[in-house]
């Protein structure tokens, strides 16, 4: 099986999603006809978490070290290193992932996506000066990553248990195995050298730095905006993976059949300006906008 690497540093992949760059939805879907309803992980369900105790412990340690050491270091890094330089490095590192994406796209039957990744790699490696500039992206060929965990999911392999990898981030049994396959079968790694070679180690290091620096203070945002950061990161990661697999199957971003229903409008006193009026139990809400369906 030839498939390729998601380089290292999957850092804190999850919260990143809340704010930034998404895979292009419909751009790369070759065959909008490959749904297999019921096969995949439901979009709305978080991954099973039988190892919750260990995961919680890893999550806690990772977050406190991140807060105390890593986040401040990256704040300094982002201040000192100019944005164009950081972008260039990110581009160059991500460019090396394109062959892996192309290989996985082929395995997934997304030939258009594979063509896109191949063309991007060719253009950016040459005219984009070894990938420093994303010229292909500027001319409308958007970057879109594929990985082997996604390939497995596309053919019906379930996520298996959720795993929070210390100092790396959320994953699952399936995606962890996928990552190993991606690393060891990475075309660029096989040719230019994988982990253990200078090239491979530098590449992994720069990738990890780039990922974490891109996450910025979004971890803090999770703290401010959600009440249970552990559950939130797990939820976000589970949804992202379900969405990546839906994309691989030719859906656009989401498999609508997997969405939960919205129940009826709850009977509540109109929350508009809910004055703490003494008692008065809830009754039907006269100005509820729920004239819907």
């Amino acid at each position, binding site marked *: 099986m030839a498939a390729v690497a998601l380089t290292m540093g999957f850092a804190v992949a999850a919260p*990143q*999603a*809340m*704010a930034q*760059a*998404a*895979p292009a939805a*419909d751009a790369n879907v070759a065959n*909008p*006809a*490959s*749904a*297999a*309803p019921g096969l995949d992980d439901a*979009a709305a369900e*978080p991954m099973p978490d039988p190892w919750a105790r260990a995961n919680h412990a890893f999550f806690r340690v990772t977050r406190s070290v991140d807060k105390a050491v890593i986040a401040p270091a990256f704040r300094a890094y982002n201040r000192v290193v100019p944005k164009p330089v950081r972008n260039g490095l990110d581009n160059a590192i991500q460019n090396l992932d394109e062959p892996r994406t192309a290989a996985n796209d082929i395995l997934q039957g997304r030939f258009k996506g594979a063509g896109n990744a191949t063309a991007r790699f060719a253009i950016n490696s040459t005219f984009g000066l070894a990938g420093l500039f994303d010229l292909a*992206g500027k001319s409308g060929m*958007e*970057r879109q990553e594929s990985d082997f965990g996604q390939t497995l999911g596309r*053919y019906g392999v379930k996520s298996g248990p959720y795993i929070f990898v210390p100092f790396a981030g959320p994953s699952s049994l399936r995606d962890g195995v996928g990552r190993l396959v991606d690393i060891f079968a990475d075309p660029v790694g096989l040719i230019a050298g994988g982990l253990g070679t200078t090239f491979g180690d530098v590449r992994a290091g720069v990738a990890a730095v780039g990922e974490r620096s891109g996450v910025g203070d979004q971890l803090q945002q999770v703290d*401010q*905006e959600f*009440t*249970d950061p*552990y*559950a939130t990161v797990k*939820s*976000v990661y589970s*949804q*992202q993976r*379900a*969405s*990546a697999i839906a994309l691989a*199957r*030719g859906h*656009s*971003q*989401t*498999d*609508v*059949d997997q*969405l*939960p*229903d*919205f*129940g009826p*409008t*709850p*009977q*509540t*006193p109109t929350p*508009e300006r*809910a004055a*703490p009026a003494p008692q008065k139990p*809830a009754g039907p809400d006269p100005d509820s*906008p*729920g*004239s*819907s*369906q």
Partner: protein
Amino acid sequence: MTSRRFTRLLTQVAFAVALAIGATLAVSIASPGAAFAQSSRDAGAEQFVQGQGQRIITLLSNPALSPPDKTRAFKAIVDQIADVPRITGFVLGKYARSITPAQMQRFAPIFRAYEQSVYETQLSNFHGRTLRVTGSVARRPGDVVVSTVISGGGLSQPLPVAWRVLGGGGSWKVVDVQASGVWLAITQQQDFVSTIDNHGGDIDALISQLQQQARRREAGGSN
């Protein structure tokens, strides 16, 4: 002799592999999801999202407005186009059934404020200028997922954002928004339910945590 047997074996294996690949392809192509995904667009829902979504993006990217004015205008739009009461019930998950009227009376306003603030932060993070509807899928009549792409402004490449809207005819309401594969209300539901679970089913624990966060938000300005 043995070599001929070997060749035959090889042929059989090759045939089996080809058959397997063919079968996989056939199954994936013939699967019924496809027809469904293509057939059920909803023009009314698309029109609603195109208009209101663009209105939000335009407001948030307006450099002439002061942050407090922006927040005020944004809240007004959310009240108008989102079905906040319905979202309020949804994010409580299984606890929507056991919440007491008194608790609901405290939860609803704090959640409304929270929701407006979270939506404003998340949508501002997109830094886009224009929104374009690219399609829609009706899960069932009156329950539609509209796909859009936000581009321009600070976005280096177009960002796909999906909107889940409920309603019909000319009257629609947003109940959830998805970016990067992540639905906001679904995430909130899993977050809130887990928080209540962790406190032995005590919904008041969630309410007081949200109240604390609101106080911190106010103290820290709009940041």
